[in-house]
């Protein structure tokens, strides 16, 4: 599997799961594709269909309404697939932690592999998270 994992690490196609975000993280994710950060040099590509995805970037606090849909998206993605929580919301719930419709155990909805802190996280932090994921894949 080592050989395959190295191939996988060099071509992570990311899919954007907006689980009720405030859209700030989504804008920061798009920053990664701009000339300044250009993650395509690591083979990272933003894809539109979840069937093509290797990494799900989950932004936003996962609330009761969106949780089944997030679960369904995770099940629709062909495995192996990795889940990265972008921002404080999926990490800790942010200021919506005590809200009536926030899902308390987000790990039951979708198994996170990496979390990125920040509100919104800097693009450098997200690249760092992906590099950690790539490091795990490379062994």
């Amino acid at each position: 599997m080592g050989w395959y994992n190295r191939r996988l690490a060099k071509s992570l196609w990311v899919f954007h799961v907006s689980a009720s975000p405030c859209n700030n993280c989504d804008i920061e994710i798009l920053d990664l594709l701009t000339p300044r950060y250009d993650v395509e040099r690591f083979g990272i590509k933003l894809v539109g269909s979840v069937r093509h995805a290797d990494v799900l970037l989950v932004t936003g606090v996962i609330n009761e309404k969106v949780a089944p849909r997030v679960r369904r998206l995770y099940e629709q993605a062909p495995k192996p697939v990795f889940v990265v929580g972008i921002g404080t919301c999926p990490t800790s719930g942010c200021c919506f932690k005590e809200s009536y419709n926030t899902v308390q155990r987000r790990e039951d909805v979708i198994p996170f592999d990496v979390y990125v802190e920040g509100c919104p996280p800097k693009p450098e932090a997200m690249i760092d998270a992906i590099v950690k994921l790539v490091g795990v894949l490379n062994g």
Partner: protein
Amino acid sequence: MTAQILFDFFVFPGIVFTAVLGLLAGWVDRKVSARFQYRVGPPLFQNFNDVFKLLGKETILVKTGNRWLFIAAPLAGFAVLSLAATSVGTALFFGRAAGMDLIVLMYLLMFYSVLIVLGGASPGNVFSSLGAGREVKLLLADELPFILACLVPVVRSGYKLDFGAILAYQAGHGMLVASVSGAVAFVVALLAVQAKMALPPFHIPEAETELVAGPFIEYGGPLLAFWKLNQFMMLVVFPFLLILLFWGGFDLRGLGLLWGILKYLLILVLIIIIKNTNPRVRTDTAIAFFWKYLSPLALAAVVLAVLGV
């Protein structure tokens, strides 16, 4: 004889050669596009990594729709494009054409578009079906000018449909693109090829901002790898076809090799430049462009070719 046919199909101008060259051409495409946007772009073997990664992923079949068509379409597309690559490649490099002529090749290339339609329509996804529908419209739009443009070399080489005659005529009288009818037909054919490959500005079926991924939206894993491979192989088949029809062939000996590679890179970069400098056109604009402007132009080129200009 059989060994030669198998070698032609599986190794040299066929699957292995076309796939490897196509993946590298795809890298040129991505790199040049990245440089257009002041980005660095992916590393050299990026497309190889992508395809190997996709081959190792899970295959997901959709619950609704026609399953065997869903699986058969990308594989048949791969077979069709390998056949097309074999016929164009053998004609260019060895003058054998693997027993096919221009009509068989046109049929194969059209059949590939039909396979995209079948593959896109099979899962029953709304976006995918819309993409398949748009592919039909695009096929209707680009087929007429493409056939008319391909008629010009046929007419000029004395109404012969086999590739050998077209190449022999160009060896004797210079490349067709240097003549008036040939130049006009080449421009028309280049634009029609752009639409046949569904590259911008004619990426109407895939239209990632409206249809997500068009006909390929439900494909994942190995089946998607085959679609990707098909798209990369088209980056070899179509430029080679244009070299064959208009640019006087590809000589493997001596300086001819360098000259041939230059021709290929020139056509590839032309396609990439058109791709990067134009926004997507609407379906009706594309059909109007091909039927109102390019088809009469191609017809004029055919008339000029009949007159022998």
